[in-house]
């Protein structure tokens, strides 16, 4: 069944490729419909836990390579939700690609990517997982770089860090396999065996965990790998950014939930002499701190960036930070909160990126200070963005709040005051950059050149409206998502949280989201009653403004000049200026690349020596090898 779906995906990709360059609309609609079909099939797969399909590829020596697909609760959950969000994004890209220049073969790659996305979530052994992981990496690389130079530089960040991670994972996988006590490629059994091994050989287990964590962190842009999203998300095509941010960055988190978190839980169960902090293994605690640092750093970087897509990308980074921190708390609430936040983030961040895509679709502008006042021109887009940022900031009636609430529950009930502070700091900071984006793009003065901007076509509005509805829906009744999450959490060996459709019960307190939502609505009506008092309001032009008695036009102020958006948070930057250099980890990476380049240049100089020189290398090498050989 699963293999059939994957096979159909490949066939669909080939069909799309065969349809050629001309039939854009047909191809994109076809692929969106196809994805809908996949989603339907996935829905049908619910409940068939434990089903495994094996395809042998080849065996050589003592290794047997085979592809194994199976359905786990976590995997199904991820597969289903990502597919739903994917459909949303693809509907958006139908219009986008019909109206803009489409690169050759992009649709083909998109379908492949969707396939590898499913394959990641359905793989039950490490080889399959790794293959799907790699395919996903390179297809997405090619989607990010549709032929212009900046995008390549940007995608390089993504690609190199990802490949670094992938290689780390590769070593980890084979290390697992090479350890005699484990010697399996099956994910589930490797967890159990590793946990047992941690009693006798904690060092080995630690290194294996580190390798996998490196890989997952690199993919999910956790500190110190956080620079890539800003580059890649910003330069990716506008319809791909939602995918990158909503789905792709979650693979690492999926890996963590699939392997690292259950492993820690198992270790806690079987290994009595593991070093603990606050009831969780010390490694887990350290990793949680990585998440917290990511959250804060991502927030800071988002605050100081002027590019709207970069801002959203850094926001993604910081949200990943929350989820990572929460997951490594290893409590039921922590894992649930992390997982829930992953879903919520996927929803609201794709909504945000879709609305940004819509803005860019109409204005072709990415730097925020050049935009402004679009709210009246593009109301649906504005509303999507507004609700998106409300959700992202974790403000009550929307879905982001529900998961943040669980995360705080987990952190507070697990007694992690400093982690809580970090997360809270990041969360408050989120408010800053989100508002800045809102203001700079949609509020403030409307530049004259955008006077004729219209709302995006209806087909593009559909996914945005869907996004709004799902944000509101999940915010009102988080239980619909939390129940399947509960199944997945239970499969990890934890007692799931008590949830009902609109009620979440935590250790410190409980919350009824429906009541919170209705409170807000009630309060709004209360305020509206006041608004009805008094005279009708009088509408004036935005430029007709209080300027201490001067007419703005008279002293030559155009709307563009009058729009305060550039260097919006200069004071924040000023505060952090002394340590700004140190915060910028990109410089380290750049230095690394530079050094690698010059190292290579130096080495290749060796081959340009004269004829006698090359003989010298020959003989010198021989002598050194001989001497070293005798010594070794």
């Amino acid at each position, binding site marked *: 069944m699963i293999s059939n779906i994957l096979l159909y995906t490949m066939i669909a990709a080939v069909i799309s490729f065969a349809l050629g360059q001309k039939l854009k609309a047909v191809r994109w609609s076809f692929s969106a419909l196809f994805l809908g079909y996949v989603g339907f099939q996935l829905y049908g797969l619910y409940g068939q836990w434990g089903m495994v399909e094996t395809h042998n590829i080849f065996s050589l020596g003592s290794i047997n390579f085979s592809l194994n697909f199976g359905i786990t609760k976590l995997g199904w959950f991820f597969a289903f939700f990502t597919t739903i969000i994917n459909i949303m994004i693809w509907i958006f890209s139908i219009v986008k690609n019909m109206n803009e220049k489409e690169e050759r073969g992009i649709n083909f790659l998109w379908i492949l990517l969707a396939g590898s996305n499913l394959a990641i979530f359905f793989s039950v052994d490490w080889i399959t997982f790794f293959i799907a992981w790699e395919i996903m990496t390179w297809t997405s690389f090619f989607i990010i770089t549709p032929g212009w130079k900046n995008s390549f530089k940007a995608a390089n960040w993504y690609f190199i860090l990802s490949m670094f991670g992938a290689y780390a994972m590769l070593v980890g996988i084979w290390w697992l396999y090479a350890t005699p006590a484990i010697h399996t490629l099956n994910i589930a059994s490797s967890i159990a065996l590793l946990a047992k091994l941690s009693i006798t050989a904690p060092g080995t287990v630690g290194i294996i965990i580190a390798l996998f964590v490196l890989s997952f962190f690199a993919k999910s842009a956790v500190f110190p790998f956080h620079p890539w999203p800003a580059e890649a998300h910003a330069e990716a095509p506008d319809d791909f950014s939602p995918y990158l941010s909503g789905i792709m960055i979650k693979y690492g988190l999926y890996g963590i939930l699939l392997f690292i978190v259950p492993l820690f839980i198992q270790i806690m169960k079987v290994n009595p002499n593991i070093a603990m902090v606050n009831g969780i293994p010390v490694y887990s605690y350290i990793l949680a701190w990585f998440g917290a640092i990511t959250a804060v750093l991502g927030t800071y970087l988002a605050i100081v960036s002027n590019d709207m897509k970069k801002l959203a990308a850094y926001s993604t980074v910081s949200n990943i930070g929350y989820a990572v921190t929460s997951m490594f708390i290893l409590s039921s609430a922590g894992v649930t909160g992390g997982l829930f936040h992953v879903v919520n983030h996927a929803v609201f961040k794709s909504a945000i990126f879709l609305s940004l895509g819509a803005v860019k679709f109409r204005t072709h502008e990415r730097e925020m200070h050049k935009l402004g006042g679009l709210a009246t021109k593009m109301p649906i887009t504005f509303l999507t963005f507004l609700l998106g940022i409300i959700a992202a900031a974790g403000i009550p009636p929307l879905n982001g709040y529900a998961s943040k609430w669980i995360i705080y529950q987990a952190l507070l009930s697990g007694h992690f005051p400093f982690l809580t502070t970090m997360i809270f700091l990041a969360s408050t900071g989120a408010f800053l950059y989100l508002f800045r984006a809102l203001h700079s793009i949609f509020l403030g003065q409307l530049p004259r050149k955008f006077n004729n901007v219209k709302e995006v076509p209806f087909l593009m509005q559909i996914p945005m409206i869907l996004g709004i509805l799902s944000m509101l829906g999940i915010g009102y009744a988080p239980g619909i998502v939390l129940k399947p999450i509960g199944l997945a959490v239970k499969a990890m060996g934890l007692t799931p949280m008590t949830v009902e459709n609109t009620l979440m019960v935590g250790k410190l307190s409980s919350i009824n989201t429906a009541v919170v939502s209705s409170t807000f609505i009630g309060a709004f009506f209360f305020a509206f009653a006041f608004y009805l008092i008094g005279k009708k309001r009088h509408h004036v032009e935005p430029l007709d403004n209080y300027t201490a008695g001067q007419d703005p036009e008279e002293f030559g102020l155009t709307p563009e000049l009058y729009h305060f958006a550039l260097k919006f948070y200069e004071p924040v930057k000023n505060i952090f200026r002394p340590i700004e250099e140190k915060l910028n980890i990109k410089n380290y990476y750049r230095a690394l690349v530079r050094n690698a380049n010059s190292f290579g240049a130096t080495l290749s100089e060796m081959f340009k020596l004269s004829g006698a020189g090359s003989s*010298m290398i020959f*003989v010198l090498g021989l002598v050194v090898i001989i001497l070293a050989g005798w010594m070794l």
Partner: protein
Amino acid sequence: MKNTQGMVNAFFAFLLVVILGIFFFNAINQPLGNGLVLNKDNPDLSKRVSIHYILKNVHNAEDYLAQHKSSYFRNRDKVKSSNLEFGKTKNAESGSANEVTSIVVNYRGFDTLGEVTVLFISILGLGMLLHENKKKYWAKPSLIVRTGANFLFPFIVLFGVYVFVHGHLTPGGGFPGGTIIASAALLLILGLKDFKNKLTMTKIIESLAGLTFAGLGLVGLFTNGSFLTNFLPSGTMGLLVSSGITALIYIAVGIKVAAELSSGIMEMNGGGEE
């Protein structure tokens, strides 16, 4: 400055060479007793494969693996009882009186085929590299050289032919013989002012000679089931007509080498212009 660098370089090279020298001498002077080492001073040929070449009894050598690991010859006494005699022994395995020839052309004829090929390919490469060479006209040769060349040419060729025809009996063989003939060609180039390069001719000769070598090997393959088999009777050791294809191959090799080297010389003289 440059000089200093050169001195440093030289010193460094010297150092490396000395280290390598120590390495080699260490290898050569390894004491006996700790396993096999280089056989110095009167090597025991019975420990080498060549004893059977000398005795011409490869076919009678006992099953190799049945013997002691360190020796090719189970009974040392057998070495002493050689019954090979010049001019008398008939139908020995390899009929040539010159043991070296018997190895070069017969026992390890395949190597020689490769060797001929090396020469062939390097002359070819030489021709390729120098095909743009313009013909050079030397200063007019003196009378002595001219006359000497004209006079000596047939004798040198004759001597060369003698050397390779007798390759299986006396020192020498195809390679020296061919080289001698090529020196005759060199003499002509030096001695005759209007010497014309005859590259086409040498090419054809060379080709045919090579063909003979390889063809003889193939005939062996098709008649006796093994490449380069000596399918002719080897005759009486020491006679001119003996040793089967060994002699034939050496003649072919001689002709081939002669043609090749001559063409090489002609190429160097300016092959591009014919």
